[in-house]
């Protein structure tokens, strides 16, 4: 049975249910009340983490690290919601990374963190993360990180990675038209940028949580600070779209008439 060393990279993003508003401060663009907004692990990175956990449990001897660059206090808070769901060893980078950060600069900070992981076997390495993030949504950080780590096999929009007994993996990537491209990767190392994957959110397991926190709290305490300065990205404006439409609300119209209007509208060129 193959043994994998899975490094999952994931940033924090505001809880998607929150209302967001951009503001320009002395340090550049950010979100209004950013420190007060509840945060979560980026949803796609969370998919990657859950997939990593599942892969590691199915392949005994495998290990999972979670590498995250975020303000320590926020990361600690998010860990409490996350740590019961999957087993991992935390590698924390104390940095303020958000939607307006530069992908390459974030990748550099993450590369330093990955390179610092003791006991990481590069020949078994699967570098996981989200194919995009809910903040920048660029799909660039992980790819650049892969490049920095010299990983020549990269996959993006991954929904499934099925290991075979010989250590190869069948990988399904999202492509246009709601289809998947199917590839066979003969062996790690490789980079997989995950889409939603196919696993449901795992249940909260208190024992996993206790175990995780034993290593996570010291990791948080020794998190190396990393100052992101923008990486040459200049933002001349950020604004909310003016999107209010003048909605015509149709009440008390018989269903037949509603249906006719809709059919006519569909037929309009």
């Amino acid at each position, binding site marked *: 049975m193959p043994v994998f060393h899975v490094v999952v990279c994931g940033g924090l993003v505001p809880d998607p249910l929150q209302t967001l508003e951009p503001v320009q401060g002395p340090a550049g663009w950010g979100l209004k009340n950013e420190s007060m907004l509840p945060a979560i692990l980026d949803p796609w990175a969370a998919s990657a983490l859950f997939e990593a956990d599942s892969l590691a449990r199915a392949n005994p001897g495998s290990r999972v690290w979670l590498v995250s660059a975020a303000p320590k206090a926020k990361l600690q808070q998010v860990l409490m919601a996350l740590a019961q769901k999957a087993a991992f060893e935390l590698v924390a980078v104390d940095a303020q990374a958000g939607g307006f950060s530069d*992908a390459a600069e974030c990748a550099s900070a993450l590369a330093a963190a990955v390179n610092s992981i003791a006991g990481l076997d590069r020949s078994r390495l699967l570098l996981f993360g989200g194919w995009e993030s809910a903040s920048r949504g660029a799909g660039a950080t992980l*790819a650049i990180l892969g490049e920095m780590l010299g990983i020549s096999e990269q996959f993006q929009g991954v929904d499934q990675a099925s290991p075979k007994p010989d250590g190869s993996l069948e990988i399904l990537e999202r492509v246009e038209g709601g289809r998947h*491209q199917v590839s066979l990767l003969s062996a790690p190392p490789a980079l997989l940028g995950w889409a939603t994957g196919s696993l449901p959110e795992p249940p909260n397991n208190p024992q996993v949580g206790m175990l995780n926190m034993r290593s996570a709290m010291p990791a948080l305490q020794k998190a190396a600070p990393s100052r992101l300065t923008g990486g040459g990205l200049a933002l001349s404006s950020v604004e909310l779209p003016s999107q209010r439409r003048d909605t015509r609300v149709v009440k008390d119209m018989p269903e037949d008439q*509603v249906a006719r209007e*809709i059919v006519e509208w569909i037929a309009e060129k």
Partner: protein
Amino acid sequence: METILLLVAAEEDGGLGKPALEAATAARELAARLEGAKLLAGIFGAQAGRAGAALAGAGFGEALLVEHESLARARFATDAAACQALVAASGASLVLAPATSRLQRVLAAVSARCRGAVDTHATALGAESGAVHATRWFYRQRMVGRVSRERRPWFLSLEPGVFAPHAASGDLVSRPVPAPLPESRTRVEGLRSPSSGAQTIRPDAPLLFVAGAGWCKKQADGLAHVSEAERLILGFLGKSGASLGGSKSVVDQKGEGGALSFLTHLNQVGQTGSTPRHAKGLATCCHGEEPHTVGWRFVSGRRAVNLDANCGWAQGKADVLYVADAFKVMARVNELLAG
């Protein structure tokens, strides 16, 4: 002075996809705004030579080609090497590419190889006093910003569906570029459609039909009618040719009353789903505020059918909201379409 390289992949038949032709228009328009800009095309694929013709008449000085059998299908290692060779050969300061799955897979990594910078999913390009800027969305299409960079080469991927596709006229000179393509541990086996039955995601359909969680909820009689909902929705998709999107809550749904069997996460729009581009969108049984409704940010004409007159999916976001029972309405719509 900028040198603009349009980086595109040739399709298996030697043509260029619509997103590539749209990017060609974007490149041409940007070049026109930059005095003295040089415009080149870089094409890779198994039939790259044949694809160049599709770009004729767009103002490209020449088309640089990397043509090899191993480029017939998208694969990171070989695609990235081909792109790197094209960028190097062009001496480009700006690299534009369509944000297709194939180019998105390699573009950021190639930018790192070329010691450049990258921004993706641009929806507009502009130039002021010789300085290029791009518009892109942040936080899942919740806010829009204008970005620029000093660093070169600057790689930009362009969202499909934004620019008009280029229509070829005349000829384009092409020049092969040598590219050492590496061995790869990846073998591409092919494409696979979801096993859950009908193909419901149709990016080129004029209409997006968005199903919300209301389809699976208990109706006025206290019961859920999931199989009827499935029949109505599939019936409508079959007759209208619409593409199917689902809200996060309906895609996530399970347990009580069941969920729509043919919906997968691939169908999800908004939040952690896609933001597809269609001329029209019809949302049914959806409810949600701003974070949820980004799913139809890029849908032009929008109508909704919902029992709640104050539905957040519709108020201020749809052109028309019908306060009506979607089960009854869609049953009648299907009858009318069949007739």
